[in-house]
């Protein structure tokens, strides 16, 4: 994962592998790989964007996972006398129109965001990876067919497709997940396909083929490890999109349904009382921005370190 194809082919290791004089032992090669890994780690730790991103992302995971212990109140506990209160020592982020504690709701809302992001991104990544490798390695007609399918899905503006789907099935968490997965598969598949296409004609794949390796073995053992790196970086950049789609749909009342706390439903309830209680939309928006910022920074830092060429053309 830490080696990307370009460097292992054109960089120093290639010299070792081609000549392979007697004095180069396995230990030397391992030592040089370890050095490279340490070098990349150092590059990451001195990149302020990367470190900020990592901190914010860790914060996101921690606050979502430990929400039940961190939240000062039950997210659905009503406290009608204190309804629509501003930030006070009792309610650090104020309360909503039913007197529920906004801070607790934000912490629990992070769990919804985390759930959607984790399931949505990983399913989309795996399906996209498989489809992309099939498109890249399979016959020409299958490649064209899959490309056309990806293009069709990408032709729909995300929210517009989501609205059309929700119009028929009604809002639910599962629907949000389905939308997120369907709309992000094409980008993973495209990257995986391009990477597979370039790998397809390299010598080591050819050698593997002539040794009689099965298609599945080539894809799983030789193509996938080389393709998955860029996809993981893409996944980090995709999380903000996914979280935003969930919050956006929930804000419209077409995603997670109201009693459940989600950043989108908090914003929606805040929007309805925006004239009386402006702090609700402010408090509801901050975690969204921090999460987006964190994953964007992390993704960009990882990209700059592991795959500098990927930044061009996007």
């Amino acid at each position: 994962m830490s080696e990307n194809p370009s460097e292992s082919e054109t960089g120093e290791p290639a010299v070792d592998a081609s000549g392979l004089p007697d004095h180069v032992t396995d230990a030397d090669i391992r030592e040089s790989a370890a050095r490279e890994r340490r070098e990349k780690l150092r590059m990451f730790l001195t990149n302020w964007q990367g470190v900020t991103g990592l901190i914010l992302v860790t914060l996101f995971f921690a606050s979502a996972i430990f929400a039940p212990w961190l939240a000062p109140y039950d997210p659905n506990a009503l406290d009608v006398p204190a309804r629509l209160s501003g930030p006070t020592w009792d309610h650090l982020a104020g309360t909503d129109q039913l007197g529920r504690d906004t801070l607790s709701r934000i912490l629990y809302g992070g769990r919804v965001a985390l759930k959607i992001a984790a399931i949505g991104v990983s399913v989309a990544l795996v399906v996209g990876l498989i489809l992309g490798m099939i498109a890249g390695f399979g016959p020409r007609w299958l490649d064209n067919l899959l490309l056309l399918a990806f293009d069709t899905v990408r032709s729909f503006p995300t929210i517009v497709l989501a609205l059309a789907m929700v119009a028929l099935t009604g809002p639910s968490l599962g629907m949000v997940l389905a939308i997120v997965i369907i709309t992000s598969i094409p980008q993973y598949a495209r990257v995986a396909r391009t990477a597979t296409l370039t790998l397809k004609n390299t010598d080591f794949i050819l050698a593997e083929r002539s040794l009689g390796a099965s298609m599945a073995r080539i894809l799983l053992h030789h193509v996938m490890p080389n393709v998955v790196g860029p996809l993981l970086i893409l996944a980090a950049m995709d999380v903000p999109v996914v979280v935003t789609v969930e919050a956006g749909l929930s804000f419209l009342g077409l995603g997670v349904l109201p009693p459940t706390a989600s950043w989108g439903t908090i914003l929606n309830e805040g929007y309805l009382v925006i004239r009386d209680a402006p702090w609700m939309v402010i408090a509801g928006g901050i975690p969204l921005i921090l999460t987006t910022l964190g994953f964007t920074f992390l993704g960009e830092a990882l990209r700059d370190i592991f795959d500098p060429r990927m930044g061009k053309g996007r």
Partner: protein
Amino acid sequence: MLYYLTKRLGLSAVVVCLVVLVLFSLLHLIPGDPATIALGPRATPEAIARYAEKMHLDEPVWRQFMIYVANAATGDLGLDVFSDRPVTAIIMERIGFTLALVGTGMGWAMLLGIPLGCLAAVKPNSWLDRITGVFSVGTIAVPSFLVSIWALLIFAVHLRWLPAIGAGEPGDLGDQVSHLILPAFAIGLSWVGYLARMVRASMLEVMGENYIRSARAFGLRPRRVIFGYALRVAILPTITLIGMGFGGMISSTVFAEIIFARPGIGKLIFDAVTARNFPIVQGAVLVATGLYILVVLISDILIAWFDPRVRESL
């Protein structure tokens, strides 16, 4: 060029057909009676029977699809469930508001973002470059619907500088413009950052090329070198970005229209989704997606026009 044009147009036509197919089959993929699903639980048996007859639901599915495509090709997208008015007429009434919003939003973003990117690239690491960098990162991380809500909160509710909802009195241009400012600001903001970043990156690359050095060596004025020679090449990836990102622009327009209660296509789709008025959803989604496909097509043709290498690659 002609060959490229034909091929690219053909591809777009195929994608449009597939989009129609997807929209059509959405209704039939959901288990249950299509008329009941499309009209929702509140529909009367008479309305369902009428809808079934109008959509030729008694015919085989492939015949229904042919009829739908034939009608759509002549501009007939069916009838509104509640008012019985043609969907096409309703969309035509609303599309002007959307086009004005998208045009203004994209326009101000381009007018500000592209020169900002140029200036940042001409003097890297100057104070302007740093401010542009921070601004880009900051705006890209904020989801556009959050910008809409916060802009509404700050400028309409708190400062009361601009009107919060609606599109202004028909015929009163000043009023209409004042209603356009906030939503256009909200959907364009993150694009300023995007464009500035993109233009800066590709400008920096182009400025290092030999022909720019030659142009400078010939003693051309810096202004002419930057805008006449470098920007012409550096703008190409930006055109692609604008084309590809137009879908995201439509998504944020949907949010802006709902938040600012502006009667455009996005609001139309949203209202139709909540009222379960599927013919409207189907028609308006088709128009919005068609618009996106058209913009991508135009951007691709523009690129091919400017850059002969692209023409040969398809």
